[in-house]
């Protein structure tokens, strides 16, 4: 039995240790936010936070994250309020089909935690998830907007 914390709730799964975290979340724990896109850590649609770090859950055996804190797109908002990145994503109408966007948002949120005012180069380096709909221009704008709004709030 493997134990982990998912979006603040203790969860456990009786699965093979090598089963990827993505499939434990999706098929065993019914957490559908992380998406399957490639299975080889290329696209990032399966991104989750593991102890605060973005990871591509399709390529992480569940045994490697036993006891760790997992946050998926469903758990990013705190106290019922959208995360600043989510707020910016809504305001700037970033998603198209939206399938990759949970992953994109989680990577952006982690970037902003490390670099509250990222440069375009920082964004280029961090945002390697694929978006087939081609929302990249809006992702960049939204990250800058989220940085600005978070900055404004912390000053206030």
């Amino acid at each position, binding site marked *: 039995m493997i134990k982990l914390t998912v979006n603040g709730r203790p969860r456990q799964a009786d699965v*093979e240790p090598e*089963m*990827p975290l993505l*499939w434990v979340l*999706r*098929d*065993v724990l*019914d957490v*559908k*936010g992380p*998406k*399957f*896109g*490639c*299975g*080889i850590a*290329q*696209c990032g*649609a399966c991104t989750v936070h593991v102890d605060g770090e973005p990871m591509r859950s399709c390529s992480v055996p569940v045994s490697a994250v036993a006891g760790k804190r997992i946050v*998926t*797109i*469903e758990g*990013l*908002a705190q106290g019922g309020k*959208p995360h600043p990145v*989510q707020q910016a*994503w*809504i305001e700037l*109408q*970033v*998603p*198209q*089909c*939206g*399938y*990759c*966007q*949970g992953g994109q*948002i989680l990577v952006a949120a982690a970037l902003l935690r490390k670099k509250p005012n990222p440069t375009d180069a920082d*964004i*280029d*380096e961090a*945002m*390697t*998830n*694929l*978006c*087939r*709909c*081609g*929302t*990249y*221009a*809006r*992702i*960049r704008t939204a990250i800058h907007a989220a940085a600005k709004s978070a900055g404004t709030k912390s000053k206030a």
Partner: protein
Amino acid sequence: MTTALNPSRRKFLKNSAAVGGGLVVGFHLPTALAQSGAPQPAPGAQINAWVVVRPDDAVIIRYARSEMGQGSMTSAAQLVAEELGADWKKVRVEYASTNEQVRLKRPWGDMAAVGSRTIRQSQEYLRKGGATAREMLVAAAAQDWKVPASECVAAGGVITHAPSRRKVSFGKVAAAAAKMDPPKEVALKDPKDWTIAGKPIPRVDIPDTVMGRQRYGIDAQMPGMVYAAIAQCPVFGGKAKSYDAAKIQGRRGILKTLTIDGDNAVVVVADNWWRAKEALKDVAIVWDDAGSGAVSSASIMEFLKAGFNEEVVPVAKRAGDADKALAEAAKVVQAEYFTPFQAHCTLEPQTCTVLIKDGRVDVWTSTQNAEATHATAAGVAGVPLENVYVHRMQLGGGFGRRGAQDYTRQATQIAKAMPGTPVKLLWTREEDMQHDLYRPASLIRLKGGLDAAGNPVAFWTRVAAPSIIATLLKLPLKDGIDPQAVASFSDLPFSIPNVRVEYAQRNPHVPVGFWRTVGHSQNPFVRECFVDELAQAAGKDPYEFRRSMLTSAPKDLAILDAVAQKAGWGKPLPAGVFRGIAETEAYGSYVACVAELSGNAKGEIAIHRIVVGLDCGYMVNPDNITAQIQGSVVYALSALFWGDITIKDGRVEQTNFHDYRLMRLAEMPKVEIVLAPTGGFWGGVGEPANAPVAPAVCNAIFAATGKRARSHPLSKEGFSLVKA
């Protein structure tokens, strides 16, 4: 979250009959609502197929086509709400039911979201649906007040009778309105008076997406569900000769192994998908390649080339005498262009969930053609159409891939083998990459003739390419022409007196399909680059040369001018930076592009700026149109620089995103968009902007490097994309 397996249709019918006063004729609870898990609100009165009004003034607008990120769920509802006079804040959008579509003899018309047609081909009946419902609501209020309906106005969800200063909200009169006879004729608003349509209204589906609440086909979930992984014969058209599942017997979670599609595919069913997928790797399958095991990209190229040896082929367009004019021309330019097979790569791989129980079939899936999904499930399950319920989920990308229903056909076969058990079929990325319906590879030869003054006098082209219409849709070709194969040639806008456009149909064994922008994703590249070659031969500026040929095509000319102006065509550029330009019609809209880039001797191309303009006539949601253009540029550049499906030993060589490369954020150039709607017509939005990007970039590459890239992908032509 658990999906309700049996939408409480009967209960809803009863309730809505009571509320709607008998007019409601059998709409079951919309899927999204049933699945939300939220408390079910009181059903409302159905005014007509498009509009339901609840007692609390909430307006439900039914959406018939599909939402795959193109935003039409919102813009279609904007058109209905505009004519309805609704308060947009109280509007909710829900999918129309395919089951009711069958039972009520297609009240919603075409449900397919393909060909950029959701707005342009439904706008009239969507607007009439809203206007008709408005008239019925107004009539109900007028009857209650005993005043002429002509004195009442509906706006913001409220009906007002100004002379008596009375007001009533939609919800209060909805039940009475539902009993009214619909008016036979309704007047539609002049688009200049729009207050909801034409505005950049936020998309209705985005908050759910951003908060992680959106449900895609892959997310279907219900008690007792089992999961299927599939291995299709790697060689198209082949099948499994035999398979040995001894190694997975008794393995944890494994429930069943079977073949489907006439042994074309082997399937393992398990209690979760990962177990099914892993077990399938250990099933030893012997494939029969059906004689196609030696086909390669090289052999397909030879097969296409043979299309140029045919003496007589169908002619798609003829004007004057192209042969004679070419023979007499002062200068003749000849070229051969190639565009390769492309994969759709919807980020959500193909998936479908089916439950067959007691003669009823429930399907949960991502589809661009819900009626085709419905019919496929009914046909495979062998049940009447009335017994099928398609629960439409958000699509994780479409791009033309999810019009075909191969995955529904497969999932229904598996479910048929496991009656009473819901089965979710999910393809791996590798299956998706290797069993797509690819954009056809196309080989095109052209000849252009110039007179002594450099004016174009003759244009000849022959397209040697597969036919999607003949092979995928299996429809007869009118006069031997597949319109997609000759798109942008058969409707050549240029004032050239002698033209002949020919089509040699060449169908290799690789299955082809509708890939975003279809023929317009490849032929404008060929046409507009060849026009550049003609301009060069004529010693003329590519922009001015085009202008001189567009004298009888005012809309083409207008968007060309608008984009050239925005880009500052003709104005000096920084040293080493060069421009290219292209223009075409596509899906009833007019699109043009100017690319600015620099290149070096190593073939490294840095794109400094891309300007794209679109004239779609009337704009329903400008922000969404901008988003579609932004996305189209990425789609076009991915295909131009890297997209390449190649064949070896009868099968696709690429397997996943490491060897079929898509553009990433860091590679995205700066894009400026010109929305230049001229009104008076309804053009498409989701696909057109893909068309002019590749030729504009390639023409700029020629300007920068002197090298003419006549074949894709550019990575094979010695070019790479680097940061500007």
